[in-house]
């Protein structure tokens, strides 16, 4: 009999134990997929060079200075390399302001800057988008933590393209 009167498979292993085993297997598979799995065809030789731009908003001069061209970017959770800063463009920070008379203006915020940081990273382009190192999705308007050895900042991705095409 497949299941006996005690709910044991072939009279040996409890069906609940089997369920727990399957749960563990699924959990371990999920962890492996999340942290170690990369897309197919993504060994280093097949990576393209993906260039993406991130926007750092309303930071002060100290933060601007700490964003260094040539600095490596790391994944904030795993410290895996996620590319290199190749350029930065510093702009005055601005915002919409409604004046007392009801009109709207774009006003500059003194001593605050927006920085557009250009990053290059080995990655893949698929029909679904771009993945840095085959792991991290790069989507315009999505939030990204820029983590170098000297600075950590919340940023927003504003552009992404494949330089190898």
């Amino acid at each position, binding site marked *: 009999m497949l299941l006996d009167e005690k709910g044991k498979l072939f009279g040996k292993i409890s069906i609940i134990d089997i369920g727990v*085993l399957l749960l*563990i297997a699924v959990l371990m598979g999920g962890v492996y997929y999340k942290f170690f799995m990369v897309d197919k065809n993504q060994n280093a030789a097949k990576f393209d060079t993906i260039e993406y731009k991130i926007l750092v908003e309303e930071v*002060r001069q*100290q933060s601007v200075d700490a964003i260094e061209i040539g600095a*490596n970017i*790391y994944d904030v959770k795993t410290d895996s390399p996620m590319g290199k800063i190749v350029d930065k463009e510093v702009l005055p920070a601005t915002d919409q302001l409604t004046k007392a008379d009801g009109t709207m203006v774009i006003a500059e915020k*003194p001593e*605050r800057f927006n920085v557009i940081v250009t990053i290059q990273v080995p990655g893949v382009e698929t029909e679904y988008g771009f993945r840095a190192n085959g792991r991290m999705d790069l989507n315009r308007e999505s939030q990204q933590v820029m983590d170098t*050895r000297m600075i950590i*900042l919340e940023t927003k991705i504003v552009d992404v393209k494949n330089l190898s095409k």
Partner: protein
Amino acid sequence: MALIDGKGRLFGKINIVDLLILLLIISIAGGVYLIFFGRSDKQVVETSKVVYDFEITNVNKDFVDAITPGDPIRDSTRGNELGTVVSKTSRNATMLNEDLINGRYVIADVPNAYDVVITIEAKANITPANIIVGGAEVKVGKKFFIKGKGYANQGFVTKMTLVGQ
């Protein structure tokens, strides 16, 4: 003796499912340890002296006066040592306000309030991705709750210098 007996026990002693659950618990504990404690010392390339600025905003004069060169600074959350005060500078606290009549942003002084920048010196472990002081990653933009002799507050790292590099 069979490897697994009629009751599903390994060598007749340990239930195979219990063993797997135990392994899962050990793996989770190991993962938690790596996430919270393991990253700090991994890939240490060298140790070096670092000097960093830590800014606390909008405090009163008594708070500024209490900060003294030579004070040991601790992370008040984790209790780790974050270095020693080298110097301090203070200025009037400011706020970025909206001038709705003229449609612009202005920086306004806050009466009887100060922004203080504490310069802290510490020994650090240097990895490719991080500068680690007392087990904590210290970099521009990082927020800490600090505690000195008779004072405690929160603030941000605003400048980071690796001495000798």
